């Protein structure tokens, strides 16, 4: 006659087998979830890094052209291949819209810095037909470079904040 302890032992055995079976599946699923999330995080980091690197290139190009613009006089005296107002305004517009989209997509906030960069390039006598060429040491040129650097530095610190 089977004893109480024999059937109990059977239940325990079945129970342990079930736990082992389910535990194995839990490990597999858990491992997959962890790996997927880690992989997704790496992909997002790479994507953000690539976008920021692209923006930095654009900022540096605008800075270079803005400095060249202010070192040449306005109007008829300007060499034909010198950067012009329209290019600078359009390039700043594209940069600003791109950074705005980046803020919405990845919460990278550089609003104050892009405003200052735009102001440094397009304020003052930017539009004036009487604008004279400026020297390398001019404060306007210095301000353009400082605001470009500030924007780049802030992009980098936002990247570090999002992906420490």
């Amino acid at each position, binding site marked *: 006659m089977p004893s109480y302890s024999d059937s109990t032992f059977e239940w325990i055995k079945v129970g342990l087998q079930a736990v082992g079976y389910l535990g194995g599946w839990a490990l597999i699923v858990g491992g997959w979830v962890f790996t997927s999330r880690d992989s997704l995080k790496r992909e997002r980091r790479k994507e953000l890094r690539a976008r920021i690197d692209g923006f930095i290139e654009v900022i540096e190009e605008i800075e270079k052209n803005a400095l060249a613009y202010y070192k040449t006089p306005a109007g008829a005296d300007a060499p034909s291949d010198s950067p012009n*107002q*329209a290019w600078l*305004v*359009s*390039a*700043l*517009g*594209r940069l*600003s*819209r791109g*950074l*705005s989209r980046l*803020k919405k997509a990845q919460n990278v906030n550089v*609003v*104050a810095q*892009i*405003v200052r960069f*735009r*102001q440094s*390039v*397009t*304020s*003052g006598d*930017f*539009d*004036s*037909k009487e604008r004279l060429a400026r020297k390398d040491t001019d404060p306007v040129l210095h301000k353009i470079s400082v605001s470009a650097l500030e924007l780049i530095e802030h992009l980098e610190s936002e990247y570090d904040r999002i992906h420490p």
Partner: protein
Amino acid sequence: MIMISIAKDFSRFPAGRFFSDGPYSGEKFREEFLIEPIKKGEEIVVDLDGVAGYGSSFLEEAFGGVVRKLKLARAKVDEFIKVRSTDESLVAEVTSYMYEAAA
């Protein structure tokens, strides 16, 4: 309420501060689109989208200029002039010019 799209109603390439800077200056936009409606007490909503780009001199002369010219207090600025754009930095910049110019 009056809705104004700078791109559709004025120019896709606004540029310059004063009339002497060109045909689509900040001064021209202010005088043709902002001054009279605000004097009449109309609320104006300005859409900044659709333009290739803005110079700060255009924005300051148009928006800071209307506040200075009409001697608007900050509360009146909020009441009469609303600025919209998908580019948050443009809204921030224009708002700062209007508030700085406010009486």
